[in-house]
């Protein structure tokens, strides 16, 4: 079947990569920024999977979070605000041999990027997507984002925001052909690692919602969530995302959730009081647009010439 990476990795270099092989420069996020944890766990995953840095592409938009590719020693594409998805889809379309990751922020994905986001979910191309949601615009210094909670005081809403936030998980689950939806948080690196890993292993558009703290502009997030054990709930299931027992123990609340049950997933996502960590939904059979993209690779110039020639024949006088 086309699209299966295993057909194409025969030329994987034999070198063993260390975490350093995936790192570049010093990450320029504020101390305490949740983005650091995502970077570390991602580098760790690449190492565990021994991904070839030359065959790995990180695509992002614009925002604090979108600086991410600059700190990876892989190929990277730090493009335009809100436009990571179309670029990433273009990269993957004809390159089944590349591993594609998308890093996006809540403004980048859910505000200016909303249209591209919806369609990327539907295309279900094989890529790992991390939405670093700090519920605020970081890079431009504290304006509300569509994911900011009601009442958020920001530089453009000094009296507090008034419309309920977009719930990225709910929205994703509402789009046809969604195939992998999970949630994790920056302050639980072990859980995050397993989640990114599960996303990477899923063949399709793996949407990982990362609750990300921004100690500079969105203090409440960290205060409310990272510290309140009553809010966080761990979703258990044999087909879900399994974490070590030690990590599982850190959750006060657990529940069983079958990730093939879309309705149940949507119900959980609706809950505004609780935050569910792990896998909401997975569908391994959703059609993939990257398989279409890879369906007619490798035509020779002679073959192309023949088609062109035949077409000229049709137009010949």
């Amino acid at each position: 079947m086309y699209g299966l990476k295993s057909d194409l990795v025969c030329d994987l270099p034999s070198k063993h990569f260390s975490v350093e092989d995936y790192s570049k420069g010093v990450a320029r996020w504020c101390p305490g920024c949740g983005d650091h944890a995502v970077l570390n766990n991602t580098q760790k995953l690449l190492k565990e999977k021994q991904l070839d840095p030359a065959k790995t592409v990180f695509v992002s938009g614009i925002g604090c979070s979108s600086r991410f590719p600059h700190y990876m020693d892989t190929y990277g594409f730090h493009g335009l605000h809100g436009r990571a998805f179309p670029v990433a889809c273009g990269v993957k379309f004809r390159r089944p041999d590349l591993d594609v990751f998308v890093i996006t922020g809540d403004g980048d994905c859910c505000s200016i990027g909303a249209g591209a986001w919806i369609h990327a979910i539907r295309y279900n191309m094989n890529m790992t997507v991390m939405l670093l949601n700090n519920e605020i615009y970081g890079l431009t210094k504290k304006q509300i984002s569509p994911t900011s909670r009601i009442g958020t005081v920001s530089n453009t809403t000094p009296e507090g925001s008034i419309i309920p936030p977009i719930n990225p998980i709910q929205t994703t689950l509402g789009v046809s052909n969604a195939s992998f939806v999970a949630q994790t948080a920056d302050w639980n690196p072990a859980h995050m690692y397993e989640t990114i890993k599960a996303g990477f292993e899923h063949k399709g558009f793996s949407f990982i919602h990362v609750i990300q703290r921004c100690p500079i502009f969105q203090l409440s997030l960290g205060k409310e969530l990272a510290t309140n054990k009553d809010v966080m709930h761990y979703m258990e299931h044999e087909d879900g995302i399994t974490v070590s027992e030690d990590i599982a123990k850190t959750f006060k609340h657990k529940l069983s959730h079958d990730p093939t049950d879309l309705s149940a997933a949507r119900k959980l996502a609706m809950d505004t009081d609780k935050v569910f960590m792990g896998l909401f939904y997975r569908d391994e059979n959703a059609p993939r647009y990257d398989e279409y993209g890879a369906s007619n690779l490798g035509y020779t110039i002679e073959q192309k010439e023949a088609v062109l020639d035949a077409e000229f024949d049709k137009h010949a006088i």
Partner: protein
Amino acid sequence: MVDSVEVKEMPPEQNSKAVVIGEHIVEIVSDSGEGAQKCGQSFAAISAKMGNGVWTVEIIPAEIQPPARSRAGASGIRIRIGSKKITNTGNEADLVVALNEQVPYGRIDQKAYHEGTIMLIENKWRTDDSEYIRNQYSDALVDFKNRGYKVLEIPMEEECLKIVKNARKGKNMWVLGMLVFIYSRSIEKGEAQIRNIFRKKSDAIINSNIQLFHSGYDWAQENLDFQFDIPVIESDEELVVMSGNEALAMGVLASGMEVCSMYPITPATSASHLLAEIFSKSGGLIHQAEDEIAAIGFAIGASYAGKTAVTITSGPGIALKTEFLGLATMAEIPLVVIDVQRGGPSTGLPTKVEQGDLLAVLYGQPGAVPKIILAAATIEECFHFVILARKLAEAFRTPVYVLSDTNLATGQQPFPRPKIKKDWFAPPIDQSPWKEDVKPYQWDEKTGLSKRPIPGQAGGQHTVTGLAHNRNSQVSYIPEENQESSELRSRKFASFQKTLNPPIINGKEKGDLLIVGWGSTLGAIEEAVGLAQKEGIQVSSIHLRFMSPFQPGLDDIFKNFKQVMTIEINYSDNKDNPQFTSSSRRYSQLAWVLRARTLVDVDCYSNVEGQPLSPNRILGVIKNKLGIK
């Protein structure tokens, strides 16, 4: 009541009395959905296959579903046929077939006919059930006569009903038969054409259409007292005939590009339609994106990770792609951008011609965004320029624009069958290890050129960014680095210009007036200039293919002419209107850029009537400019 031209018996020997003419312009107009375009295209194809020069232009109604029998509904086709090569749509039509008497008014509004134009009109309306329609019909016929047209009433419906139950479907083939007789075309080629266009249909359908065709032919032979012949100048050259959009699609195929990422928009979309049919069989794919921004983003992603990709659009799409176009230049991603221009501004005149995107394409992006822009002047160039654009995009690591327009897009024209060359096709992408000491932007100091690392190339890892960056693709805010990288990016275009020749002058190297044109007006301008030269007027013309950077040598050419003006299809303030002063007058787009570049007082004639410019109109402009009556 109208006295129409009397229908007389014809002598039996075909062609014996046919009047030999050098060329004719034929129009078929109808309500939309009556198959006029299929009829006209077949007629053009038959003529082209006989070896005639042809040029077709579709007549597109204003509305998708205009009321029947209305001037807004005029739908159809114009075919100009000649013994020699035909390069443009010509002046007024010589013969019109009208399926009702109202649609010609849509064309009369556009000054499409002249005194003496032969008008062959469906006569069924004369006996319509509705008195209103009967009156409309006879009023129109009186009016047409007053306008000096030669009107013939033709029993199309009546004759067709002898063969089929529903005359609406099939009348076009009856008309084709009639035209084949009138212009002494080959009956065999006509039959073959019908078999070809209905090749996917049942035998029953094919046969009934062939019957209708013969019926039209026979009726004309029996009833018309005139016949023309447009002899062919023999040539051994193999020809192909296609529209500009088909040529673009085949150019994409021939360039070896494998990804065309687009969003539908008139008049660009049909290029993707042909491409969709042939692309997947040759290792390419169309991606219909969710919008134009995503379309170009996807193309950029595909280009970045593979062979150069192409995006095809028209004005509103160009507007939406603005931000990504800036990124592609800044990050030096090869890309082919095809803009099939339509009437603007805004949604404007989607189905009409305009050359109105030049300034937007040149200057649309904030900041310094130099670029290569090619403008096709013929359908043949639509094909070749896409191939060229792909090569330039890769060589100069930059987006390359190909401008076309509605005239080229929907027109049909024969041209020499291109001899396929292997080096048209993009080679496989480089996946060899990247040389260690080469930076991702290893700009050559002189030319600004550099080679791009493509994902998969071991050691070529870097992060592309639209932020100011240095040779290592690292974000840099150092003042000198931004100055230097901006200059190096600019040098690529100076380097490219050095490879270009000055434009060729059509006519003498000195004179009273130089006309400068670009795009689809080539044929009409050269025809008009030719006519003027024959009248002894000291006028020459040049036609630009490279809009950015310009071909060199313009100053030298201009200085040999007393006056220089552009002729374009876009907006300029009318110099003769006192409301506009020399400090406010807005020039047409190429004229404006030429003024800045050459400091010559380049004047312009242009309009936004959405119509191809006719040679006569241009001739009038030339004479007017030189004060000749």
